[in-house]
């Protein structure tokens, strides 16, 4: 009889502990929860409301509901929005894979033991220090008579003559793009490096004993093991490109806000923009999720 009655109080006590633990968690979360209300949820609420309304009185931010009027304006009257938007999407879709591939290659290159490892590691992080924002933007657009700094890496003249003007242009455009992308991949390289360090050396050793080549080891060991980092980097890169200060769309929204002072319109635009970024991120996650190696150690 005593044996049978044992489980009941035990379970009751455990629930109590659960509640206590839950309370403890909320104690830890208090500052953040306050922050969520003040600096995140409320501004988002205001911004959403603005996107669907018209400011009647600026003081106290009195608004009148206008429904989708702002969005109508975006698509049917604004001649600048759609082209800029398409440009940004095009850039992001092209730059993100480039960024991921190049930073992975660079991370693999500087991960091996070699002379001057510290130097290379610092070199690849320098653009991050240079500033992702204004300094970079100006350095890129700097220069006299329209030449940008990217012209430092030019297609050699001999090759240019061989290929003809149109192909050279394409190649040059590609080189410029790569340069720009590389300058923005400092953080990604660091993350990849950390991921590569985390792969156990015994895996490679076992593969080498079995006669695998470097090429096979890359596809069969490195890539699967590093796939969670790739996923994380893809998301990070997309978000970074979308919110970058050098992005024409961000610039446009900023101008709409603080130069033209059309706050409702800017809010509508930025929500459209953000939702699109979110959709791209989710698509990436959905597409990549099946190929991600799961070590099963964490949730």
């Amino acid at each position: 009889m005593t044996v049978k009655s044992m489980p009941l109080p035990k379970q009751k006590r455990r629930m109590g502990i659960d509640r206590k633990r839950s309370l403890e968690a909320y104690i830890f979360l208090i500052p953040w929860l306050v922050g969520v209300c003040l600096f995140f949820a409320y501004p988002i609420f205001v911004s959403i409301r603005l996107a669907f309304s018209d400011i009647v009185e600026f003081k106290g931010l009195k608004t009148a509901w206008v429904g989708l009027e702002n969005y109508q304006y975006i698509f049917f009257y604004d001649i600048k929005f759609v082209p800029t938007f398409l440009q940004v999407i095009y850039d992001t879709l092209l730059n993100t894979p480039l960024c991921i591939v190049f930073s992975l290659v660079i991370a693999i290159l500087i991960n091996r033991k070699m002379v001057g490892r510290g130097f290379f590691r610092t070199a690849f992080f320098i653009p991050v220090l240079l500033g992702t924002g204004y300094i970079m933007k100006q350095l890129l657009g700097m220069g006299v008579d329209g030449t940008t700094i990217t012209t430092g890496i030019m297609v050699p003249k001999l090759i240019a003559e061989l290929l003809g003007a149109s192909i050279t242009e394409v190649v040059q455009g590609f080189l410029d793009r790569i340069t720009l992308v590389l300058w923005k991949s400092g953080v990604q390289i660091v993350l990849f490096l950390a991921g590569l360090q985390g792969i156990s050396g015994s895996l490679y050793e076992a593969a080498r004993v079995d006669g695998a080549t470097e090429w096979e080891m890359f596809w069969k060991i490195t890539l699967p093991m590093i796939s969670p980092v790739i996923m994380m980097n893809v998301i990070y890169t997309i978000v970074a490109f979308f919110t970058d200060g050098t992005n024409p769309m961000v610039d446009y929204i900023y101008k709409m806000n603080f130069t033209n002072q059309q706050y409702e319109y800017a809010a509508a635009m930025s929500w459209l923009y953000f939702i699109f970024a979110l959709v791209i991120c989710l698509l990436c996650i959905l597409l990549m999720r099946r190929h991600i190696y799961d070590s099963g150690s964490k949730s």
Partner: protein
Amino acid sequence: MNSAMVKSNARKSKASRFAKTFVIRFAFYFLLCALSFIFLYPFISMIVKSLMTEDDLVNITVKWLPSRATWSNYSIAFRRMGFRRYVWNNVLVCAVGTLGHVISCALTGYAFARYRFRLKNILFVVVILMMIVPVQVIIFPLYKQYSDWKWLNTFMPLLVPTFFGFGLNGGFFIFLFRQFFMGLPYEMEEAARVDGCGPLRTYARIMLPMAQAPMLVCCVLSMVWHWNDYFEPTIYMSGKPDYRMLPSVLPSLYDLLNKENHTMIQVNELEGIIFNEAMLMAATFLCIIPIMIAYLILQRRFMEGVERSGLTGM
């Protein structure tokens, strides 16, 4: 005779293998050097340009080596941008903002990693949203809010949110700490609880001292991002020049040159000095020198920190 043939074969293959590794090695270093040149290009060209004289700037034969280094560019840029006045603003914002991030994000990340509570999943979605929602989307409501609170033209809008886990990339740092704390064994806290240690004390005395790696990563990244950030400071500090930060001083300098039909040299009559591209580059370089020194000191430990913080464990 047979053995001699084998020997010569062996020597041949040894030589060819040596040649092969040498070629691979050479290609490897060549590739690395080329890539690092691309990375260092803006940096190098900035330094080189900052040392040029006016004649060098217009002389197209001078691309890499200035005819003689002119250090006066730096002294002019130093004065022109008010370096001594604004650098302390930067240092203050960096130091306090970083401190805020380390304190608040570690706390929040710890709660998400080690506790099970109701609404945990929903709240974690909020953390993810914090990472993805760009500040540009909510900048106007924030601006309005801060102006209602009379926070404009003070450092409050930059500093206070960091103590609540917000501010620049707060979501990323929370995620960083969560990943690290998730990797620690549960026995730690259990032992502490058995010994009668309260939750806050367990956190402060046992868990936090172990989190040096993510703390360092958080410090370095937060510092670098705060130092370079110009979007929010330019918006919140537009009214009072005294509170400007270095990156937001630069635009006014750049505008000086860009507006004048891309002329390289602009004479400022008020101050009686010539301001040109070289000085602009000097100013830009001055702007990042402090953060570069700080990074170079912390570099090695930063890399180790990233590796150990388990950020990449997903």
